[in-house]
Each structure stands twice: as structure tokens, then as C-alpha cells.
């Protein structure tokens, strides 16, 4: 199975019963997989007229109480940003997969990490946050899609899987998780199911009175704080005795793992920290780590986006060099090792 198909099947396993999408390379396999798979499980599938329509179909299906997903790649994700802001503003759960590609503009269809800012710092308008998960392997992607649906429901927030064309297109043997029966999931008393024997339910992000909106937003922010406290996830490899540590997520983390092995075999004390939640970002663990090591090298397939969060966490406790490839070029373990060596004195 390709990474794209695995993520689609993982969504079905998680109880996703509504998928709306629009073709764009390199994520087409998710749409195509859902087109064949959804009818068999009694779910809804539509190839929408645009990414704007798709995310708004998600908004409706999610409001009706069903686990809902859409997927796209960078240019299409830009179009979904309005809808993501509305999902956040109406406290609706939804899973969005970005199989990111080179940008800006039409860019190219090669893997890239230039959408980190968009995913983690807003992207759409207004004071909102979105949980962002960055899988490095297909096994991680499956696990994270399952987790994404649970977190989305638990906190009533949109959750993004920030992957890239490399992960989407590669093939790996996988084990699929135990499927979840949607009927066994916790109820959603807020959902639109018809006002029978209860007060009407309303799903809206609109509050004309600033006092009201302030109250609603403050309540939502406290949920965000809870997420920051409880849901930070990351993985450390070979950091206990490391003098230099790579920080990388997604495909770069996968490549950097090989670089760590190569470095270790040459006696270089290299470790790696892989943020799994890009929001909430693992600031505290990175801060702790930074007081034990000399250098924290951030590697991204971008001109440097996550590096801003790394520097926020590290401050001046360690050196924070950056190495990036842009335009859809994929970095190699050898390139990374060269950068490591340049930074160990």
C-alpha cells in the first residue's frame, strides 16, 4: 500500500464515514481509495467541485455528528483555509490531510515542508489553533490518522496530518489497526440530528456581540491550553549522550534517522528529536534537551520554518544552526551528515 492509501484505510478504521475531496497530485490516491472504499462501509463520498466546497461539505457532515475527513496538497490546502477557520470557530472536529508539495504558487509536485507556517501558525483567519501531526513513516501515519480522529472529537477541533509527497507515494508493508465501529464512539449531543424532544442545536462561529465572542473565544483558548498541556508528542533517538541533536519532522526525520546511525558508526555523538505534534510544539522537552547539548541542528525541506519554534524553545542554551533544501529537493542522509560534521567542533 502507498502512504496515501494507508492513510485513507486508517481513516476508515478510525470510523470516518464522510470524505470529500478534489484531485491534486500527490494526494490523488486518497480520493481514489475513498471513492471505492466509502460506499462499502455505508459512508459518504463526493468528488467536490473544489477544495472550498469539499471543506464546507466536511463542515456540514461533521456538524451532523459523523467522523469526517478531507485531503489535499498545498495549493488545495490554501483554499481550505477559510473552511478550517470556520470549523475552528464552530468547534467542529475534522481531519485534514496535507500531502504537501513544493510551493509557493503552483510550485511543483515534489515533497516539501513549506506549509509548516500555514499549518501551525494560523493559515486561516482569526484566533484559532489546529492540532498538527507530522508522520515520518507509513506506520506512523496510520497511527496518527487514528489519533487525529480521537483528538478532533475529544477537543472539538480540526486536526491536520502534515505529510508530504514522499510519504504519500512510497510503499511499505504495514499492519492495519483494529477497525472502530462508529456506533461505539461517544455520542455528540451537540450534533445536528433534528430537534426532537430537545432544544435546537446550533452550529455557528457567529457572535455579533464582542462580549459574547470574547467569552466563546476565551473558553476555546482554555481548551487549547489543555491540549498544550496534555497532547505534546515527540520522539527522541540517541539523545542521552548526544552533544549535537537534529530536530526534524516528517520525511526529513525519516532521512535523519539514517544520518544518526551513520554518525554513530563514525563516533559522532549525534541524536535526534522528532516533534510528532507540530502544534502543540514540544517546546519544554526541547528546552530541557538544549541545556544538555552544544548544538541543535534543525533540518527541514524549506527555507526554515520550524526553526523559529526551535529557537523559541532553545533560546541561547545551545547553538541553533539550520540546514534546509527548498523547491521540492529532498535532502539525503549524506547531506545531513555533512552539515552535522560542519557543526561539531
Amino acid at each position: 500500500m502507498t502512504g496515501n492509501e494507508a492513510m485513507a484505510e486508517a481513516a476508515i478504521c478510525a470510523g470516518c464515514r464522510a470524505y470529500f475531496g478534489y484531485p491534486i497530485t500527490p494526494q490523488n490516491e486518497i480520493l481514489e481509495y475513498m471513492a471505492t472504499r466509502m460506499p462499502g462501509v455505508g459512508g459518504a463520498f463526493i468528488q467536490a467541485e473544489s477544495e472550498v466546497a469539499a471543506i464546507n461539505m466536511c463542515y456540514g457532515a461533521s456538524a451532523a455528528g459523523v467522523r469526517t475527513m478531507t485531503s489535499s496538497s498545498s495549493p488545495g490546502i490554501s483554499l481550505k483555509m477559510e473552511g478550517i477557520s470556520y470549523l475552528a470557530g464552530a468547534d467542529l472536529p475534522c481531519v485534514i490531510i496535507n500531502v504537501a508539495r513544493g510551493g509557493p504558487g503552483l510550485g511543483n509536485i515534489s515533497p516539501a515542508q513549506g506549509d509548516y507556517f500555514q499549518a501551525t501558525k494560523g493559515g486561516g483567519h482569526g484566533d484559532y489553533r489546529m492540532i498538527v501531526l507530522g508522520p515520518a513513516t507509513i506506520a506512523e501515519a496510520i497511527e496518527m490518522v487514528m489519533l487525529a480522529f480521537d483528538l478532533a472529537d475529544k477537543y472539538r477541533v480540526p486536526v491536520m496530518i502534515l505529510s508530504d509527497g514522499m510519504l504519500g507515494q512510497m510503499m511499505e508493508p504495514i499492519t492495519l489497526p483494529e477497525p472502530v465501529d462508529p456506533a461505539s464512539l461517544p455520542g455528540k449531543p451537540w450534533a445536528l440530528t433534528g430537534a426532537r424532544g430537545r432544544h435546537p442545536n446550533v452550529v455557528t462561529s457567529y457572535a455579533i456581540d464582542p462580549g459574547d465572542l470574547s467569552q466563546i473565544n476565551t473558553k476555546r483558548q482554555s481548551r487549547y491550553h489543555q491540549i498544550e498541556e496534555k497532547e505534546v508528542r515527540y520522539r527522541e533517538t540517541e539523545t542521552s549522550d548526544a552533544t549535537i541533536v537534529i530536530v526534524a519532522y516528517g520525511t526529513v526525520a525519516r532521512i535523519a534517522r539514517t544520518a544518526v546511525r551513520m554518525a554513530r558508526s563514525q563516533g559522532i555523538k549525534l541524536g535526534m528529536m522528532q516533534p510528532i505534534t507540530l502544534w502543540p510544539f514540544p517546546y519544554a522537552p526541547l528546552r530541557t534537551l538544549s541545556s544538555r547539548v552544544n548544538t541543535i541542528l534543525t533540518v527541514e525541506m524549506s527555507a526554515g520554518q520550524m526553526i523559529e519554534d526551535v529557537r523559541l524553545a532553545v533560546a541561547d542554551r545551545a547553538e541553533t544552526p539550520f540546514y534546509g533544501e527548498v523547491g521540492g529537493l529532498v535532502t539525503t542522509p549524506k547531506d545531513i551528515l555533512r552539515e552535522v560534521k560542519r557543526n561539531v567542533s
Partner: protein
Amino acid sequence: MSVNMDNMVKVFERPRSLTDAQFSYCPGCHHGLVTRIIAHTIDELGIQDRAVIVASVGCSVTMYEWFRCDGIQAAHGRACAVATGIKRVNSNLIVFTYQGDGDLAAIGTAESIHAANRGENITVIFINNQIYGMTGGQMAPTTLLGQRATSCPDGRNAQLAGYPIRFAEVIAQLDAPVYVTRQALYDQKRIMAASRAIKKAFQCQIDGKGYSLVEILTNCPTNWRMSPVESNSYVMNQVVGTFPLGDLVDRG
């Protein structure tokens, strides 16, 4: 004089599916009339506990607050996509959108056409007042040639802004829609006809027949700078000339 209520027959009352909240529309605005007709229809068809209102962005933005029905607020123009999402996961619900001309026929053109073209089993109520009411009277895609708006102060000029779009006719070109009609509210006869059309559109959905659109020519006394009475005459004498009334598709 004492009145014995027991002997009186109630001939007019507030529809049961409306809450006690006051409409936020201006006095004399047809929005209020259509909203009331919809509530009455929901009562008549007994669907208060199945109906889901998809409110759009425009003067009717808080429509869900006035009904004892579940409701959702859609982003500007996206109501038909939102309605599609709801209906596709729960076909037992009676899902309708209520959209202005800016919402449905400008920013939401793609969503409006494609929901109709897929034949989504939803009901679309389209309020054509030839103006952007909520934002203070700018030109709409439906503004008549020569009709003034704040963004075409000398009247709509076809060279600059094209022609008023006849959206019901656009939708009527498609194969999927089962009921497409244009109605008005300028006199009692028209109000009765519009009420029947709205009821029929909901009935189509209840019967599982598919997509229906009711376009209603309405007024905007505030931004047209007319009295409600003048605005009724304007719809009758001017607007209908550009937007002919009647059923365009009836496969119901």
C-alpha cells in the same frame, strides 16, 4: 366589552416552529415574510424535528435563532456545500439553505451550481433583492441595469458590470433539478403562490425526489431608499421585467 376567547376561532397565529425571538430585519422587508412562510410550511409539513436550517451570510445570517429547529451558519456562499455534507450523512433530515443573491449567485456560484447539478436532495431558498443588504447596499449580480447601488452610484452599467444574472434559468439548464421556480411577494396573490412553491419544494425533498430551488424576488426598502409600499410597486413594475415569474422546471 368582554370577549369570550373560547368562542373565537384562531385564523392567524405565530408559526409553532418559530421561537419568540424578534427578527432582525428592517420594517417592511420581504425577508421577514419569507422567513415566516418557511416556518408555516415547516408546521404544515410536520418537519420541525427533522428540519435543519443552513443560514448564509447576509441579512438572514442569524436565521437559526428564530426557529425551533436545528441550524448551522455557513461561510459566505458555501451554504449548498454545507447542506450537501449534512444531507449525505443523514438523509432523514430535511435540509434547506436560505441565501441572498450575493451569497448564492456571486461568491457561492460554484457551490450553488454543483449542488444542483449533483441533484442533492435539498431545498434552496434564494432571496433575490438585487442588492447586498447586509453590507450596506452594494451592487449584486442581480442588480438591474440602471439600478443604483452604493458601488454603482450612477446605476448598473452593462459595459462595466455585465447584466443581471438569471440564476433560476441557469439552474434550469441542468438535468438533475426537480423543481425550479421564480416567485414574488408584491401582492396577496403572489404571496399565496410563493407559499405554495415553498411547500412544494420541501415536499420534493420529503418525497426523496431531489434538488429544488425557489428564487424569490424581494425588496430592500432600506438600501433601495424606498418605502415598503414603493418597493412593492418597484418589484411588480421593474424587477419582474428582468426576472420573469413562474415555474422553470417541474419534474416533481
